[in-house]
């Protein structure tokens, strides 16, 4: 009896979480153009999605921005985290606290402040402004992820490396970077997701010359949800799922 209740409860929770996505996936295969009544299985929305060059272009731009901003934010963020961990300097605590302020401040605040900054500096809104903005909001997440990983290690390890003849650079490459690597990877994935996801900041800081996927979808949905969008959303859900599953299988095999 207790088992039934427990399993039933889990079922409800997962239903709560995944029902909307299941509906979305189902609808993307529905032949009906309007409404939700089932009119048979069809892949035509996928076909028309790939015919819609505007949407595909926006998706490609999104992936480019996400890859670039995640990579740059991870590089900058990892170095900053190592710096925070490795050196004691005036204002270190303040810097650390400011990171959390950045993470917690509402997107809209960052969006407006970045927009103001770009206007003041006469930066053309488009690819570069968007890239800079995405690096900016990803950076604190990378720093904090990597820093919290590093701070779990004895600082004497660095002294040991130097004692054994490794200079600053080799200490970083041979000791700190390998130790931080899981957090660096996590930071990159987090930044990538944040970037692909972002609507608010991107809405403010990009121009008509460079439209990315979330904004494109947003503008399409304003005129009613098109079935292509369902197909697109399904792909966006299933591709990461595939990657996660693959990585789990690979990790298990490695063990």
């Amino acid at each position, binding site marked *: 009896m207790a088992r039934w209740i427990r399993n039933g409860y889990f079922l409800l929770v997962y239903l709560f979480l995944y029902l909307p996505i299941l509906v979305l996936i189902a609808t993307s295969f529905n032949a009906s153009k309007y409404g939700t009544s089932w009119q048979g299985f069809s892949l035509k929305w996928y076909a028309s999605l790939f015919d819609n060059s505007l949407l595909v272009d926006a998706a490609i731009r999104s992936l480019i921005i996400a890859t670039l901003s995640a990579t740059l934010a991870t590089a900058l963020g990892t170095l900053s985290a190592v710096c925070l961990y490795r050196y004691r300097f005036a204002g270190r605590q303040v810097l650390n606290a400011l990171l959390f302020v950045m993470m917690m401040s509402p997107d809209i605040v960052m969006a407006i402040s970045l927009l103001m900054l770009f206007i003041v500096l006469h930066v053309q809104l488009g690819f570069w402004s968007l890239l800079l903005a995405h690096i900016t909001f990803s950076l604190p997440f990378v720093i904090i992820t990597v820093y919290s990983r590093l701070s779990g290690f004895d600082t*004497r390890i660095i002294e040991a490396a130097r*004692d*054994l003849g490794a200079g600053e650079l080799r200490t970083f490459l041979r000791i700190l970077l390998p130790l931080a690597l899981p957090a660096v990877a996590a930071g990159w994935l987090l930044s990538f997701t944040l970037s692909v996801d972002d609507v608010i900041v991107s809405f403010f800081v990009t121009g008509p010359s460079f439209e990315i996927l979330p904004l494109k979808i947003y503008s399409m949905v304003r005129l009613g949800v098109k079935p292509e969008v369902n197909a697109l959303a399904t792909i966006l859900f299933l591709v990461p799922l595939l990657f996660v599953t693959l990585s789990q299988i690979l990790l298990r095999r490695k063990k």
Partner: protein
Amino acid sequence: MSELRSAVVELKNIVKSYDGKTILDRLDLTVYDGEFLTLLGPSGCGKTTILRLLAGFEAADSGEISIAGQAVNALPPEQRNVNTVFQSYALFPHMNVFDNVAFGLKMKKVPKEEVRQRVQEMLRMVRLEEYAARRPHQLSGGQQQRVAIARAVVNRPRVLLLDESLNALDYKLRKEMQVELKQLQRRLGITFIFVTHDQEEALSMSDRVVVMCEGRIEQIGTPRQVYETPANLFVARFVGEINVFDGEVLERIDPQVIRAVVEGLECTLRSERPFARGEKIKILLRPEDMRLSEARDDASAEGRLLGKVVERTYKGMTLDSVIALENGKRILASEFFDEEDPSFDYDPGERVAVGWVKNWEVVLPDAG
């Protein structure tokens, strides 16, 4: 003997302070090639700071440090010919035992085949050959300790620095490692500078002991010198248990002997120090040099101090007694069991006469 050996480490007039607090105060120290030197002192006395200055993790405010004849003040740690065994071991968690030990050699670009040979030889020496592929977290504390030693020693440094390296081990393992370290040092002929706050460890392992307090060196000497002829009260109290009697000089009898009053009792003491008549003195005696005897009547206590047994502790090899003298001072006596009278014991409250083995007393001026 020391004069014949060459100095491998020299510290001259070293001053170091943190946040206005002086850690090392104009310190001079010479370490000879191949010796086992121990820095002994309570925590905060600056002993670890000396190691960190030698390793290059800290810079001295002023003064000169040289290793093997080369001034190293401006050299970063990676360019110094010393290696450190850290208190926390500080093994690299992402490398196995072999790679940990090989790290220093790889940094020096030693050819691969030689690295392999030297690491294996080193692992054999610390009896960890079978553990080469393990990660540090899969090893016990004692094994990690040996990896840390191997990782430092494999580089054949001129000086090996050991920072409270045995602290994390339990008593039995610690004793074993003390013997192993000493053997390793003899075999390799490397200079060891060992930091500890454990006086027993310092006495049993070292060629010379440096007793430190608050950034200054109180005494440098062989374990025997430091224990038997402490230079001052701090050394006497820090290195083992000691009884301190108050006294006053009456007169000098000959260059080696003075007459003095000790806790109200007139007696002769051995001392070559120049004391003035009437000068206040401290007389130091180790518990094992105290001799107790029964004092049933006052006649048998002639020439001795009288007291009462307050407490007695059976220690297996010895019987340790706390005696309260008539003036209230408490002293500790540690007596070996006599084979003729294995059951000897005192009752609490028993009156005893307190004496000591003649000439084992250390007489110091009363510094106040």
